[in-house]
């Protein structure tokens, strides 16, 4: 029978041999390689930075549009709705950036893994709400863009309501499709992740992992 304590001695022996058998490629630890490379954490931070800048630019542009059209409700109201959405996305992105900046991987594992999982939950919720609200907001946003960029008055009450209602009807369809075919839609990990985010699969997994972490962290002796 194999016992962990007996194996600990074998492990120590194995450990002694490792010193001779492992070769570290110091060339790969050179300045050029390390300074030029980006860790997963840095890629996330950079992506969030670009995303926040884009949302900030949209919020500012919409703010300017609202100021110019404050007396014309048919343009001001869609712009306010779009701006509200953009501000929500900006706040959510900034919250993720702040959470990402607070992560120091040199700190104890249980707390860092909890922080990472909380950040993941925040990202999934932002994606879910962003996409689902986006299918409704795109119609008023289209009116604003048509007016601001091309000077076209695209406002039409029937068209606007038809699109908002169409967007609303798309939400359950999108949820159903992503739940049903999420794992089969394309080979791209990005698409798969997106579909699983919308379907709530990733959120459920993240919640399970968080619960496991809490259990791991706080388990009472003899439980």
């Amino acid at each position, binding site marked *: 029978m194999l016992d*962990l304590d007996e194996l600990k001695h074998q*492990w120590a022996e194995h450990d002694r041999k490792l010193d001779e058998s492992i070769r570290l490629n110091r060339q*790969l630890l050179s300045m050029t390689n390390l300074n030029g490379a980006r860790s997963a954490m840095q890629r996330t931070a950079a992506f969030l930075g670009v995303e926040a800048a884009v949302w900030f630019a949209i919020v500012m542009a919409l703010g300017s549009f609202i100021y110019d059209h404050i007396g014309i409700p048919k343009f001001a109201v869609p712009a306010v709705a779009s701006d509200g959405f953009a501000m929500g996305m900006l706040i959510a992105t900034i919250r993720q950036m702040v959470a990402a900046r607070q992560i120091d991987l040199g700190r104890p594992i249980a707390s860092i893994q909890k922080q990472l999982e909380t950040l993941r939950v925040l990202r999934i919720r932002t994606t879910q709400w962003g996409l689902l609200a986006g299918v409704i907001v795109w119609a008023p946003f289209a009116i604003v863009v048509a007016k601001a960029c091309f000077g076209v008055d695209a406002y039409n009450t029937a068209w606007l309501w038809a699109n908002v209602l169409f967007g609303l009807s798309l939400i359950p369809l999108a949820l159903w499709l992503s739940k049903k075919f999420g794992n089969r839609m394309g080979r791209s990990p990005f698409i798969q992740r997106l579909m699983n985010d919308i379907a709530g699969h990733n959120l459920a997994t993240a919640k399970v992992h968080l619960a496991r972490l809490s259990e791991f962290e706080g*388990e009472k002796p003899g439980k």
Partner: protein
Amino acid sequence: MKRHGDNSQGVQAKPMTTPALQERFQTLVDEHKKILYKVCNAYCRNRDDREDLAQEIAIQLWQSFGCFDERCRFSTWMYRICLNVAISFYRRESTRTRYVLSDEDRLLNAIDETANQPVEIQALYQFIDGLDSLNKALVLLYLDGNSYLEIADMLGLSETNVATKISRLKQTMRQEFRGTVRA
């Protein structure tokens, strides 16, 4: 927080220039390369995945090296970084793009790999492979001879909690390998 200064293993206290810092970093990682190897082996079965993880850890180690707190031992700090990166890597492994690397592109090369390992060590890796990411870390730290207090410090748990978990893992292992004949 003090930066890249002294630790219990004799790292210099005065601030270093980047090439000196780089040299110090390379030396320290070289001295503790076994940690890197064992963590990668415990979290990835495939050789290319192991190498991807090793490189991801190396990048993270270098980027965090400036924040290395001298009050902490380098091995403790390195374990934390390695395990935190490995657990995250393991979580997103299914959605990752894989790269096939040549021997020159590999950060770690082990001469015997798994083929020449004793059957008990292979069985141990098999047992570790069946554990969840957090218990993998616990077993690895225990096997490496860390005390319950050190393990608790690295994982952020209480010492009694670590003792309970280790005892439960020993029990699980005994049940799992009941009847296994020693080679």
